[in-house]
C-alpha cells in the first residue's frame, strides 16, 4: 500500500489528526523511560508520519518499547495523547504486516494474549513459557528467579480457568473501534 494511503488511514484513526498540533518540542521523547532504546522516540515518529514516511514509522521499534507509563502524555504541552498514538501505530503495523521482526515485545504480547485466549486469565509462568519458546535466553535468565519464587510458594503455572474463557476465545479479532475524541 502506498504511503499516502497509510498516512490517511492513520489520520482517520481516533486521535490521528492530533499529531498535526505537535510542535516537535521533544518533551515526550525526553520524558520516556526507555528513550535510550528507541531509535526514533515519539516525537520523531510524528514527524515521520507528517512527512508521509509511513514505512519508517510503522516498521519502527519505538512504539513497541512503549511501556505505557503516560509520562509523555502528562507533559506534552499540546495535550497530544502520545500513548494512544503508540497503541494505534502498533495495531496498524500488525494490520499491514510491518511489525518489526527483531523486536521481542510483539512476541511477549502474543504470549500474553494467547494465554488470555486459552484460559481467560494469565499466570506469569504461562506467559513466560509461551514467550520463552521464542526467546530462550530471556527465559533462561529467569529460571533462577522462578526457583526462588517456587521456594516462596509464589509460582503458579496454570492460571485458574474461568467459565468465560470460551467467550474470550471467540471474540472477533481486529474489529475496528471508532471513538469520539
Amino acid at each position: 500500500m502506498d504511503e499516502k494511503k497509510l498516512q490517511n488511514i492513520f489520520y482517520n484513526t481516533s486521535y490521528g489528526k492530533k499529531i498535526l498540533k505537535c510542535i516537535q518540542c521533544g518533551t515526550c521523547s525526553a520524558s520516556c523511560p526507555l528513550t535510550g532504546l528507541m531509535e526514533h522516540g515519539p516525537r520523531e515518529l510524528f514527524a515521520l508520519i507528517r512527512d508521509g514516511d509511513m514505512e519508517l514509522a510503522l516498521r519502527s521499534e519505538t512504539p513497541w518499547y512503549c511501556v505505557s507509563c503516560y509520562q509523555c502524555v502528562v507533559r506534552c504541552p499540546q495535550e497530544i495523547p502520545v500513548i494512544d498514538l503508540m497503541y494505534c501505530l502498533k495495531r496498524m503495523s500488525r494490520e499491514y504486516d510491518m511489525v518489526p521482526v527483531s523486536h521481542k515485545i510483539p512476541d511477549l504480547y502474543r504470549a500474553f494474549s494467547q494465554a488470555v485466549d486459552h484460559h481467560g486469565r494469565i499466570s506469569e509462568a504461562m506467559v513466560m513459557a509461551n514467550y520463552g519458546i521464542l526467546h530462550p535466553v530471556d527465559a533462561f535468565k529467569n529460571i533462577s528467579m522462578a526457583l526462588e519464587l517456587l521456594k516462596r510458594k509464589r509460582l503458579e503455572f496454570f492460571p485458574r480457568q474461568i467459565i468465560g474463557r470460551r467467550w474470550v476465545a471467540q471474540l472477533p479479532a481486529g474489529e475496528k473501534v471508532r471513538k469520539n475524541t
Partner: protein
Amino acid sequence: MKYDKLKIGVYICHCGMNIAPKVDVEAVVEFAKELDHVAIAREYKFMCSNPGQELIKNDIKELGLNRVVVASCSPRMHEPTFRKACEKAGINPHYFQMANIREHSSWVTKDSKEATAKAKDLVAAAVARVAYHRPLHSREMAVKKSILVIGGGIAGMQSAISAADSGYKVYLVEREPSIGGHMAKFDKTFPTLDCAACIMTPKMVTVGQHENIELLTYSEVVSLEGFVGNFKAKILKKPRYVDEDKCTGCGVCMEKCPIKKIPSEFNERLSNRTAIYSPFPQAVPKTPVIDPERCRVLAKNKRCGACEKFCDAGAIDFEQKPMYLDIEVGAVIVSTGFKTIDPTSLVNYGYGRYPEVYTSLEFERLNNATGPTSGKILMKSGKPPEKVAIIHCVGSRDVRYRKYCSRVCCMYSIKFAHLVREKTGAEVWEFYIDIRSPGKLYEEFYSRVQEEGVHFVRGRVAEVTDIPDNQEDFGRLTVVAENTLTRQPKRIPVDMVILSVGLEPADGSEDVARLVGVSTDGDGWLTELHAKLAPVATPTGGIFLAGCCQGPKDIPDTVAQAMAAAGEAASLLSKGTVSTRTEISYIDPDLCAGCQTCLNVCAYSAIQFDAGRGVSVVNEVLCQGCGSCSAACPSGAASVKHFTDKQVMEEMEAILN
C-alpha cells in the same frame, strides 16, 4: 412613515472584475429600476472612486434624489465614503444604505445565475430598508483637557511624559509605592545590553518632576464614569503613613525599623526589607511607606515608633486614612503591564522544591547591582555556579497553561546566557523549542551569544531532577531533555536552573478592563480596537492601551506603543470636541410602560428611570446602541435608531418576497 416623496437612486458597482463577471450587473440594474420609488439605477466600474462618488452627488443634485443605495462591497469598507458623498450633496448621511454583493455574493457563489439572483435580493432589501431611514444628527461636546494613565511601568511613564510634553495635564496612577514596573528590576536590557537604570532612572525623575504630571503612587482607580472626552475618575490613595510633602527621603526610618525580616517583593523575596520601606534605592517618589500588616504599631498595636522618633522631618503619620480623589479627564491610557507565570504548578521543573531553580525575575535581581547579591551571580551556598541551564517556554506555548508565545523570553534568556558567561564563566545550556528573535539587532545578538560558547539545545525540557546519573553529580540538578536535532536524550548535570517564565496579564487587569469598559481576550489581555489598524485604541472611545497590558512585548515595542497611545490621546484632546453617536436607543415615552426591563439588560447603565414621568430614559452619551433594550422591551417602546423594527422587517420582507 414616509414624508416627502421618495426618490431612490441605486448604484451597482462592478468593482473592476470582482463583481461584474460573476454578477450580471446589467440585469440587476434593470431589476432595480422596477423597484418601488427607484428614480434611477446605474452601474459603474468603481463606485468608491472619485468619479463614482461624483455620479451620486450629481444625481442627488440634479434628480433630487433623497435616498441612495449602493450595491458593492462590505459597508465596513465604504459606508463612510458614500455617507460622506451624500452629506456633501446635501442629504442626511443616514439616507444611505449599502448592499454587499461582493463579499456576500460574487466572491462566495460559484454559479453566476445564483450570484445574480442573490444580488437582486440584496438590492431589493436595501431599497426597501432605505425608504424607512430617518435623518440622524450627532451633537458636539467639549473635551476635558487632561489624561489619566493607569500603571506606571515604562509604558505608563512614557505615555505620561509624551502626553505631558504636549501640554496636557496627566494623572499617573500607580498602585505600588514607586513607579518603574518590571524594567526597574533589570540590570541590562537586550539586545544592546543598555544598563536599565541608566535609561530608566532619568525617565522616572522626569515623571516625578514634570509640571504637567500629577503622580499618584500607592493609589488605585476605583471607578470611572462618563464617556469619551468627559470621564470622571475616583482615585483611592492608600495611606502611606508617611507625609509625602514633609519626607525628604533620607532613609533613616528604614535603618531604625526593628522589623527587618520581611521578604522584599521587589527583590523577588531573595532578600528582606523593613516594615517601613521604599522598594528600591532609586524609587520615585522616595517617600517610604509603612507596611500596615507588619509594622508593630499598626499591625499589633505595640509600642515602637522608632521611625517616628528618628524622623527629623516629622513625616511619619500613623493617623493617615485612605483618601479619595475625584478627577475629570478627557482620555484614559491603560498601561497595567504583566506578571510572570508562577512555575510552581509545573512541578517537573522543581521550582519551590529545589533551591537552585530560579525564575527569570529572580535571576534579574541576582544579576542586579542593587539586588540581594550586589549583582554577583551566586548560588544559595554563596558560590558561583559552574554549570547553568536556562529553560525556555516555561508556561508558554503550552495549551495547559498559556498557549501563546510570550515573545520576550527567548531574548532575555539569551541575555542571561551572556551575563552568566561574562560574570562567572560558567558553562551554559539553553533549552529552546524555537529561538524567536525577530527584532532589530536581535538575531545578531543571538549569533554573538552562540559564539560565546553557549550550548543551544533544541528541545523542551522534560524535567529537572535531583536524581543524578553519576554519583559525583550528587547534590547537583539534572536537566532532562531531548536534543531534537540529534535525537539524543540528554541528562545534563547543572548547578543552577533558570526558568524563562512567560508573561500573563497583571493581577487585577480584568478589574481595570471592566472599570474602563474594555474587553479582554481569552487569555486576559486587554483587546485593542484592531490588531493592525488601531493597535492602541479600544472599542470604547477615549480609552487607549500601552505596553504589555495589551499582550507580551519588549521594551522597544512598549515604548513605541506608549508614545502612540499618548499621541492618540493628545490628538483627541487637541480636537477639542467629540460628537455623540447617532445609532443609539430611543425610548418613546408614549409607549413606555415603565416596567424597567430595559434597565436590567443594559450593560452600560445607559438607561435611567424617570420616576416623575414613570418612563425610562436613555442617556445618549452612554448608550452604545447594542439594542439589548429594544429586543427586551415588552411594549416596543425602546428601539435603536437606524435599526428600528420597521427598518429590519422591511429588509427581511423584501428578501422573502
